[in-house]
């Protein structure tokens, strides 16, 4: 497997590490709606790398270049339907956040995007999920291959307890029987991409579970990235982390969106505002509103969205 796309991210991560105390150079400065919301200075002009495509904050939902698209998706556990017909395009190489109160089907929806939903017994789906215009629920699509292209980071960090830090990073490749040409280089690349390299480079042989919660979560992200997925699904990746670890993961999401399409489920609305380009609001298994994050948080069209983001329910 070729890890080349990681390099730019890795370089940035390394660069960032080097001038940690300095303000970020403009081209790596996170550009997002949330900055405005929080009264931070407005986003600087986009750097050369993202200038080539339309500025995402000028793109409306109807102009999204979708990497994935749910079409009339239903999902059930046994007889109870959790997702009741959701259609949602997911923009390529941008961050899409899914927010909503507990039990609204956010996580289930996410798990439908890489066919992890059906792993639970009694779980079924209806409808389509397109990945590059191919329906991943098509009968001749192997779910195992889908999961190789659409990676996932879970709510609780779940490194493999029997494996070292190094082996955890390589786990996805090894368990898939990939012959590794340069395992050390791949480990370093993936760990640099999640800005974990400097913290763990001297103890790669230690157990993955010996790390702190935030480090474990970044290790899990590195493990997912080592497989070079095209899409990265994150299911409340920060809910088990403290604010500092959360900030690091969010920073990471900013960097990763240069390379990956990211979908993040979050309970934390500030987090959605900080990291996401687009935000979808789910309620009782339905999509209530989907728009640019800035619009969702400043002038939502739906009353229910407004009630939720202003904390009137949920």
């Amino acid at each position, binding site marked *: 497997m070729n890890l080349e796309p990681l390099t730019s991210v890795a370089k940035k991560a390394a660069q960032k590490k080097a001038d940690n105390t300095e303000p970020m150079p403009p081209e790596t400065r996170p550009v997002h709606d949330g900055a405005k919301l929080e009264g931070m200075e407005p986003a600087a002009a986009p750097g050369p790398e993202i200038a080539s495509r339309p500025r995402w904050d000028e793109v409306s939902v109807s102009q999204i270049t979708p990497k994935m698209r749910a079409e009339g998706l239903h999902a059930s556990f046994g007889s109870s339907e959790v997702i009741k017909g959701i259609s949602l395009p997911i923009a390529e190489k941008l961050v899409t956040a899914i927010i909503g109160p507990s039990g609204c089907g956010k996580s289930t929806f996410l798990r439908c995007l890489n066919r992890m939903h059906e*792993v639970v017994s009694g779980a079924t789906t209806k409808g389509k999920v397109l990945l590059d215009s191919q329906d991943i629920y098509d009968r001749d699509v192997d779910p195992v291959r889908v*999961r190789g292209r659409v990676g996932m980071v879970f709510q609780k960090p*779940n490194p493999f307890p*029997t494996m070292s830090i190094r082996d955890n990073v390589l786990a*996805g490749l090894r*368990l*898939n029987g990939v012959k590794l040409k340069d395992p050390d280089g791949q480990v370093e690349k993936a760990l640099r991409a999640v800005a974990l390299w400097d913290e763990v480079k001297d103890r790669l042989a230690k157990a993955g579970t010996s790390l702190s919660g935030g480090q474990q979560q970044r290790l*899990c992200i590195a493990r*997912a990235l080592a497989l070079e997925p095209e899409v990265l699904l994150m299911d409340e990746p920060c809910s088990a982390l403290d604010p500092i670890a959360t900030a690091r993961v969010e920073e990471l999401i900013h960097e990763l969106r240069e390379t990956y399409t990211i979908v993040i489920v979050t309970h934390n609305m500030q987090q959605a505002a900080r990291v996401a380009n687009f935000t979808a609001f789910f309620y009782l298994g339905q999509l209530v509103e989907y728009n640019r994050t800035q619009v969702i948080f400043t002038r939502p069209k739906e009353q229910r969205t407004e009630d939720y983001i202003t904390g009137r329910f949920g």
Partner: protein
Amino acid sequence: MNLGAATYVRRNLIDRVIRALCVVGTVVALIPLFSVLYYVLVRGIGGINLDFFTELPKPVGETGGGMGNALLGTLKLVGLAGLFGIPPGVLAGIYLAEFGGSRFGRTVRFAADVMSGVPSITVGIFVYSLVVVTTKQFSALAGGVALAILMLPMVTRTTEELLKLVPESLREAALGLGVPKWRATLRVMLRTALPGIAVGVMLSVARVAGETAPLLFTAFNNRFWSSGVMEQEASLPVNIYTYAVSPYEAWHRQAWAAALVLLATVLILNITARFLVRSRVGAR
């Protein structure tokens, strides 16, 4: 809330009485264990010497001799039992843990539970008619099969229970990395549960090492060294039985020594198993 001083005095009293009862119960439970250990040690230690481990039994009237053949025989029988019993047991355990929700799975689990309650002598008779009658001889092979049948339900259920203890999140992590289910099961779930399964397997080995009844008419006994697996085979438990019911004082001493060796073997297996668990927890 204040329930009055008398209430608290009464509660403390009840607390003390119950605690005392628990201590007494524990002591009562430990008395047989330690008296067995003590008695076997005191009576058996006299018969232990190098000859006991290396020599063949001497005919009645001659002094000396040992149970080398029975010791080797027990190891051989247990080894065969492990060979026949562990692989299918572990595989069945994996099946139950992964697919045990089906009707068939529930039936298998129930059958395993019933099997672990079957008297061992019944298993002996079964193997007698199955193996001994068809091969027309008592053999280590038949003994191994009988012990394997006794191990099977223990190994199966231990494997299943320990696999179920592995957090589901690890399976999801593996599946989320695009790993096929069978590989996730073997390389993540089984790998994580392996130390525990090893302990369970060792305990079941220890358990069958002391079985006598199923060997009486499968491996039978042998006064000489046996070669291969198709000859009748001596074993410590059967020797203990034979020697203990004999009228000779020298044989009684040998039986006690054999009991001590058997007990020590089982104890060592148990302690090794527990040590394995502890060193694993420590390594985390």
